[in-house]
């Protein structure tokens, strides 16, 4: 290796890196705002029983077989509306609205299917309009 490789870095840098690598203490104060569950081995029995691992005397030995419950993110305050046809109707004031293809783009002259990017997200009804998504429909 040519010496030019080293010239950008003075040696004090090595000393700092060394502190970074070896000088840190490994202490684990509980993280801020993190609630650690308190576990009592004698009374705790609320786990799902598909995982027999919990019954083992020394359960960690069996973690290779262990499966966590899958994480399903419930985005049900939102739902996806597939593009669909809206039949023509008459408003209260008497104007006639022609039937159109509702696909979420706000432009009734272009009709798109889901594969073409049609469709849109709406908020679920929850008796408050404060959290509703704005739409350009």
């Amino acid at each position, binding site marked *: *290796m040519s010496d030019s*490789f*080293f010239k950008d*870095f003075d040696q*004090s840098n*090595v*000393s700092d*890196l*060394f502190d*970074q*690598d*070896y*000088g*840190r*203490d*490994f202490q*684990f104060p*509980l*993280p801020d705002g*993190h*609630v*650690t*569950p308190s*576990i009592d*081995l004698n009374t*705790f029995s609320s*786990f799902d029983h598909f995982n027999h*691992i*919990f019954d083992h*005397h*020394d*359960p*960690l*030995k069996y*973690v*290779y077989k*262990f*499966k*966590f*419950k*899958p*994480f*399903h*993110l419930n*985005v049900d*305050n*939102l739902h*996806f509306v597939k593009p669909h046809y809206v039949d023509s109707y008459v408003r209260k004031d008497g104007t006639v609205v022609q039937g159109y293809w509702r696909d*979420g*783009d706000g*432009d009734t002259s*272009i009709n*798109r299917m889901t*594969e*073409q*990017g049609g*469709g*849109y*997200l709406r908020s679920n009804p929850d008796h408050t309009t404060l959290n509703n*998504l704005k739409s350009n429909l």
Partner: protein
Amino acid sequence: MNYEQKKAELLQHASSLLEKIKKEMPSSQQLEALSDLIDDIRQDYYTIVVVGEFKHGKSTFVNTLLSENVMPVDVTPTTALIHAAFFSNTPEIHVVKRDGEVEIKHLSHDVLQNYTASYHGDGDNEIKYLKIFLPSPFLEKRVVLVDTPGLNDLNQHRSEITHRFIPRADVIIFMLDMTAPLKKSEQEFLEKNALKHVKDRILYVANFMDRIDEEEIEDVVDLIKRRIENITGQENPLVFPISAQEALEGKLYGNEELLHYSGMIDLEQQIKRTIEHGSRSEEKLSHFTNRLKHILDLICAEIDLIQQAAQQSLDVLKNEVQKIESWFGQRENWEMQIKQYLYEREEEIQYLVKKSVAAFEEKVKADIKHKITYFHGSDIKTFVESHLPSVLHSHFTNWIDQYSDYIYTLLHKLEMELSKGLTEAFKQTVQINVPLLKKINYEANLSLTAVHTENASVKAGLLVGGASTIALLMGASFVVPIIGAAGFPLIYRKIADKQLEQIKPELLFHIDQSITSLFDDFDQHMSGFISQAIKDIKDFTLEEFYRLLQYTEKIIQEQITNKQEATSSALAQQDALEQLKQEIQDYPYHLLQK
């Protein structure tokens, strides 16, 4: 190519790509990661750790490497501190304390001697290590030389040395005494698990060659080799007979002949070879290359995303932006769900660990009870003071070596499950195929597994540790109480005037108590460690995911602008990106890795 050449090659490739990516993809999410990697490659340094028992001439040997009489020799008590030597034109000593304070002094033999003599390694003192700065040619090319306290001293530094310094060392020098090679304590040290993976980085140095007859040297070296082979299973270990004293004199007084016969020249050449071709350098290189490959994979996925977005119609793109926006709007909602999910999983992990620790405690107590019950020796003081603590210590070390793998497996599975769930939910709502998601989900989970070998990766926080992080829980605050446990002094007083059999019940009682409190402490440390790791997983996953959302939105916005303005430069950009992708994919990465 040797290590340095390969490293330079890798550095050049990474730097040239960085420039191109900056130009063609200025908003790439990977720019920071790539420049971090380049920094880490450039900041690479080499650690040489000297271990061995007291009175084997470690300090003289270190002085010889440094070509300077700096470390105190022949002081009683011998050095019980970790010393690290660095290159500097300004000779100084930095006393690094546990509370983070650093005291700076001018380097002199007397000052060092003073520290060595006043330090007793009794566990309550506050020095972490001494850093020595001096203009030694040996240290010039980013080499750090670490001198450790004697192995036969069961002090708080011991687990630091075994779990922190040794696994990361480029070269480990194991000092032996030619006149009494491989005693039981040395054998025990070599049998440790932590040394299994680094065997080929150990150079065995048989000191005091000047104290035995010349015609015997070869036989003694053979004997040492055979013993090492038996203990470690390592074929043809490298054993170097030297006289550190003669080598030092040779260097200090310019006596070439003395230096030549001291065996030191061969050894110094081997140190250099091990740095350049040893398994540690391979490990580092392979780690750097993998990190680079991973970053470049993500960059290629970013290019795919840009290319895909470019093919979509304006309306489709506008619609996608709106969907991503709605994800941002839902942030509070999904963060809450993640928190809830992780809390339940943490309960499970904490339970599993607690239960296994309880099983371990039972086993340890039974073993110690057995040892005390069947002890019939006469030296009960040594039995209590050194044998039992050593038994406890190896119980813990073995448990941690084995079980930290299990714990990391759990944490890794959790991380995968979380990121899989997020990805699926995102895919359900956003229709454009985001190739990055797949990468993040199945390949990007480097945090727990792949980053742990690298020095610079400590930056990444706790997720880097593996066995060593958990083992270090047993560091200063933990190993010492085994020895100085509250009940012991009481017992010593009685040992003097009582018969062994009368003491046994009392001994059993006190030791059982101190093991119980030891395990309480251990339990608490483990629980804190797991909480911290789970919090890190949460923060890491959320950050990655959020960044991905932002980036996807940005790319789509850019394409919307491109389409609205229908610029010709957009076409040129597509070409440049295609070229960049080819360059990334065509590079012969395998040449840098074994």
